[in-house]
């Protein structure tokens, strides 16, 4: 079947099978390989994207049901070559090691701060509970979220 997906503000026509998963359509058809497929079972969060500004695991979404929704992936965060404040904070606080979890965690952080601009530590932990990172031990990720929170509240 042919569908139109709205990804990072751009419309794409894609031919898919009804059972295709959004993570695969993004990566394989649209070449947006920033989102990672770590588990394909909803457990790791590496495939997290925003669907109408809401963070979801794109390995548990059929591409066919993403039609009509605004999809935002890690590739859509930077504007004119400037990193999004959340991306910049992950760089500044060295919250990235191998980087495999990073696109998903950054998308989740964007969603988290959007909904709750000043979360408590507990709320950050709860917010990122669906994202696994095997490298950082999460401490630097916590710092990066705080850093992003600060730049974003200065900006607004």
């Amino acid at each position, binding site marked *: 079947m042919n569908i139109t997906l709205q990804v990072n503000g751009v419309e794409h026509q894609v031919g898919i099978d*009804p059972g295709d998963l959004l993570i695969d359509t993004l990566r394989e058809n649209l070449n947006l390989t920033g989102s990672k497929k770590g588990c394909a079972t909803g457990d790791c969060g590496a495939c997290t994207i925003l669907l109408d500004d809401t963070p979801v695991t794109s390995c548990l979404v059929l591409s066919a049901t993403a039609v009509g929704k605004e999809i935002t992936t890690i590739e859509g965060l930077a504007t004119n070559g400037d990193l999004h404040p959340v991306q910049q904070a992950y760089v500044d606080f060295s919250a990235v090691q191998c980087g495999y979890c990073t696109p998903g965690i950054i998308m989740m952080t964007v969603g988290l701060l959007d909904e709750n601009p000043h979360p408590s530590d507990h709320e950050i932990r709860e917010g990122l509970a669906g994202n696994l990172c095997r490298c950082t031990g999460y401490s630097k990720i916590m710092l990066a979220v705080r850093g992003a929170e600060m730049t974003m509240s200065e900006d607004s």
Partner: protein
Amino acid sequence: MAVISDVHRAVDLDDLLQRMAESEGRPRVLAGGTDLLLQYPAAEEESLALVDVTRVDALKRIEDGPDGLRIGAAVSLSDVMRSEPVLSRFGVLAEGAAVVAGPQIRNLATVGGNVCNASPSADTIPPLLVLNARAELRSKAGERSVALEEFFVGPGETVLEPGEILASFLLPWPQEDTVASYTKVSPRQAMDLAVVGVAVALERVDGKLVTRIALGAVAPTPLRATAAEEYIHSAGRLDEATAAEAGRLAEEAVSPIDDVRGSARYRRAMVRRVVARDLLRLYERLDGEVVA
């Protein structure tokens, strides 16, 4: 291994019921997809036609009425958790929804899906049971309402007939002073299934203690611990001794299995302890009294 042959995105309730009534290929309801998309490859059918219900507005509302709060089956767990009427009057359901998986999954998953998947360990079911929820079912032929306790037949099996869908839950308004809680026992704090789930509601009716106790992950279906409930009612009081006896009676009602998450013995012991503990905690909230 089954494949998905078609995805129809229902635009409204009529369209949905019409599709579900078409016998060919026995269409399956696709809501959040967080269980179905993991399970379907193992389905017996060679191919599956799915009907997406997430655009059907009639299934996405939370409405209060004279007989109670009606929650559409396609309301996401995140929206259930944040709903003002749920938080203020049916907080135990928000507690259950909040401990399902992680935030991304809760944004997709729906309360109706959590119930229709009929997993013994589903975290919204024990809370709904102690809230006396009714399941409102619709099909092209009509509608019916069943007590949620009668909705489950076995693991993954419900009373839904072919062509029939779960449209909403009706939660009767509780008494002002009803208190309730949900305890999920699981090795990890997030992204895990319940090894034991215990929901307890407590209220006073005509001066008598009335409790409802529902247990998850300890039998083929979630269940009410009616012997324990009746015991508290006839004992007429809650203290260490009566709470412990209620815990023991609740344990007698369960038939857990051993699996990777926990042994049957551990599950039994947790049912006994958590039921007793939560009854006492709720009693303190109900009366503002501290039980020695």
